[in-house]
């Protein structure tokens, strides 16, 4: 299975529809401070089911919706879609590609979609279980967090070990 694309619209600073296509190998994301690079990382965590607004640097989930700028009004919804390909084996799907989408509205209400069909968070979590994809995994390492792998008390480090087993 490999990551094929990520599409954001209304998510944090990505007011306009934005798509990133991925290839095998190493993709670098660059730009000045505050341009939106870590917001992309937040979008990946979010669409994979992150439940804690704090983990996305916000106070509530609606903080993820584009909240306007000098020249642009706030939006009413944030949406992110992540697409994987070659997933028959690892994810056990019938299709070669699978798209997971998530939306949140100003009311706080949210929705999940699997290949455009509404689904529950549970379905997404079950899909990715045991694959290493997901928010618990160390495969997403946020800015400034690398030191925590060491500085957390020895007792905390055990979660790493439990995850790997």
């Amino acid at each position, binding site marked *: 299975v490999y990551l094929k694309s990520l599409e954001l619209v209304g998510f944090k600073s990505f007011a306009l529809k934005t798509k990133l296509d991925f290839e095998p190998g190493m993709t670098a994301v660059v*730009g000045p401070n505050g341009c939106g690079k870590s917001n992309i990382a937040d979008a990946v965590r979010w669409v994979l089911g992150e439940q804690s607004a704090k983990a996305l640097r916000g106070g509530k989930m609606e903080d993820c919706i584009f909240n306007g700028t000098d020249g642009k009004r706030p939006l009413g919804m944030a949406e992110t879609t992540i697409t994987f390909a070659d997933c028959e084996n690892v994810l056990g799907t019938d299709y070669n590609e699978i798209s997971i989408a998530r939306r949140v509205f100003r009311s706080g209400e949210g929705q999940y979609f699997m290949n455009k069909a509404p689904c529950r968070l549970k379905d997404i979590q079950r899909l990715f279980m045991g694959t290493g994809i997901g928010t618990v995994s160390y495969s997403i390492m946020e800015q400034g967090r690398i030191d925590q792998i060491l500085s957390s008390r020895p007792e905390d480090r055990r979660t790493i*070990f439990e995850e790997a087993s």
Partner: protein
Amino acid sequence: TTDMFSKTFEQINENFQVMFKKLFGTGSSSKLVLVNEEDILECGIEVIARPPGKRPQTVSLLSGGERTLTAVALLFAIYMIKPSPFCLLDELDAALDASNINRFVDVLQGFLGQSQFLVITHNNRTIAAADVLYGITMEQSGVSKIVAMKFKDHEKKKPDAPPPAT
């Protein structure tokens, strides 16, 4: 489950020692130590690191860059056991100097056979090692926009690519 934990611990320990040597170079060594061998399911885990030429110490006395590199060794040790289809690393190289970034990038490239890597960075060496490059701008203040500067199929970057910061 004590057995299972024990087995995993041994595996991570082994991988960690291999990764540490690759990142710190010859003459270095490291190990993970269970604080209380009698109670392995509950006790803490100590990280001992010995950069080349130095005495083994707990990680608290290491420098900022040495700590980052040690943490990366532990992270990669876990990736070795359970590779994920993709890994997203946000500015891991912030505290590293030039030669450490070179080694970090070399080790990372060793994993590209089994995982895609998405790396957020300000560093030119890391950027130079990428197969694909995405630039993010905010010309309309507050609104992010992507400028793709793919160069996997081309030998060099497009001439109008914004200069990478720092």
